């Protein structure tokens, strides 16, 4: 892995919290934030990097000769370099800034897809994908007449590799999540990628939940494209990333058209700019890229190995605590081994609807998400309309798990009879 392994092997959460202004508030009850899988909070370093940029040297990038614009461009491109290094990319030409992971995946579908796929061509997805990795392909399938195939999910919430070879037969592209935002499952991306490559397919990895939580190396994963999003990894909203192999990106037609992505425009045509700018039409999310660069800096400071170790420990504690206190009344979906999953716990509790659970927990300051988590096909597969979901990040600790467990009692009181 190309990640910088930290000297610490776990996190001092009390110290970490001091980095996050949201914990400076005096809330009563205190904040128990367990919804980082939806969006994480932002450390001061990220907010400061953006504020400092705006307060000292904001200007549009890439087109200004004056020093302030040059400085803006330098900070923007330095952020790209940091992101590239963070995921083990060998060149900044391979790192495209988008507005979120969703746009990154749409870019691949529309640009690579339209250039390379036609009627009857097979695209392989999985049943545990987020809508962001389903709808772009469903739309493309309708536009081009593609055939979509889905890898199944086992009853334990693992990716079912049984049907892999059959699914890959004739496949042109495989797109799968590196970590389920519902189950926490970490599918064997590398194994699927190797099989996909052997079958001649290109591999897209939705790493929206992976990059924030595990050290990432695009080569080790076997990815051809990797999509992720800033706001789940301590960065701001409004920015995502698409990494892609240079040969592939190079051969692809542009996605959106406008300033920045062109080399020349005439009244009857245009030519494209070099990578990565070819895929960055219009004024980019400049401050957001700088904020994401700072977020990467913070994650490197914590050390991704420590982040992962911390989350495994916390997940383990949560699984134990909930089992001890509620036994079979509480069903956690997904893998039971904390080392085989991320810190995302989707659960059902005593038949109480997740909306009601979340509402009652909120009264105790405990923030969990309730709903389909943008994974309706997976909900159908699990046979539930919705789940409640608690998810962990660097600022969570055992006390958050205890608060969750305590608050669940209040749900029982209100709804169980």
């Amino acid at each position, binding site marked *: 892995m190309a990640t910088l392994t930290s000297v610490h092997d776990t996190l001092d959460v009390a110290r970490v919290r001091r980095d996050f202004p949201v914990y400076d508030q005096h809330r009563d009850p205190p904040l128990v934030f367990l919804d980082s899988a939806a969006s994480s909070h932002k450390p001061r370093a990220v907010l400061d990097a953006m504020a400092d940029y705006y307060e000292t040297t904001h200007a549009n990038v890439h087109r200004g000769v004056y020093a302030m614009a040059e400085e803006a461009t330098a900070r923007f491109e330095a952020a790209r370099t940091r992101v590239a290094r963070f995921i083990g990319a060998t060149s900044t030409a391979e790192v495209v800034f988008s507005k979120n992971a969703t746009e990154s995946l749409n870019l691949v579908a529309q640009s690579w897809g339209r250039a390379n796929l036609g009627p009857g061509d097979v695209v392989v997805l999985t049943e545990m994908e987020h809508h962001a990795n389903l709808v772009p392909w469903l739309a493309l399938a309708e536009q081009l007449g593609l055939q979509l195939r889905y890898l199944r999910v086992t009853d334990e919430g693992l990716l079912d590799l049984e049907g892999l070879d059959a699914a890959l037969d004739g496949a042109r592209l495989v797109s799968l999540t590196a970590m389920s935002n519902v189950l926490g499952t970490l599918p064997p991306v590398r194994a699927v990628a190797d099989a996909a490559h052997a079958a001649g397919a290109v591999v897209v990895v939705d790493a929206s939940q992976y990059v924030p939580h595990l050290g990432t190396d695009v080569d080790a994963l076997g990815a051809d494209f990797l999509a992720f999003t800033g706001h789940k990894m301590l960065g701001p909203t409004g920015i995502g990333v698409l990494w892609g192999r240079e040969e592939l990106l190079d051969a692809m037609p542009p996605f959106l058209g406008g300033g920045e992505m062109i080399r020349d425009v005439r009244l009857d045509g245009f030519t494209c700019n070099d990578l990565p700018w070819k895929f960055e039409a219009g004024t980019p999310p400049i401050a957001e890229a700088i904020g994401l660069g700072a977020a990467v800096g913070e994650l490197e400071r914590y050390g991704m190995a420590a982040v992962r170790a911390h989350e495994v420990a916390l997940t383990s504690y949560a699984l134990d605590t909930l089992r001890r206190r509620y036994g079979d009344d509480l069903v956690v979906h997904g893998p039971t081994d904390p080392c085989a999953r991320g810190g995302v716990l989707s659960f059902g509790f005593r038949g109480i*609807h*997740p*909306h*009601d659970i979340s*509402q*009652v927990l909120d*009264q105790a300051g405990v923030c969990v998400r*309730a*709903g*389909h988590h943008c994974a*309706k096909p997976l*909900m159908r597969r699990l046979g539930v*309309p*919705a789940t409640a979901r608690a998810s962990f990040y660097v600022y969570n600790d055992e006390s958050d798990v205890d608060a969750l467990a305590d608050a669940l009692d209040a749900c029982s009181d*209100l*709804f169980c*009879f």
Partner: protein
Amino acid sequence: MAGLEDLYREIILDHYRNPRNRGELECPPARRAEGFNPLCGDEIVIYLDVGDDGRVRDLKIGGQGCSISQSSASMMSQAVKGRTVEEVRTLNSAFKALMTIHESCLDGDGNEVGAEVGGDGSGTDTPVPDPNVSLGDLTALQGVVKFPVRIKCATLAWNTLTQAL
């Protein structure tokens, strides 16, 4: 922060625990409509049987959802049975008005354009309450307005009913 007691009134929990008019009707003669909340996956199925006299002869409810969507559906089923289609529509408007957040002073400049946010979040309909319509038990749901996310739960049954009409 509004308290849970504003949301989970006893009568609401009662309808949730003991939902009225659950079941199905044969279609035809009944009409069937399905509604769901795109944000949470709650689903409601309504079977509506309107007699030749233009009155709701029977109405059954299927589907699943949270306490608010289920109890709202249950209360609605009681409220509309036996009413004329016209009366049901009036009731529907009155309920929607109850569920609407008026934010006309959003930033205090008195300009009303776009200042009202529709109760179902669509930002387009701005129903006006009719003081002559009595909502009965349904008024127990007015605490929902303090929890904007749940408004869609409360209105789901009504929106589905509109489709069936």
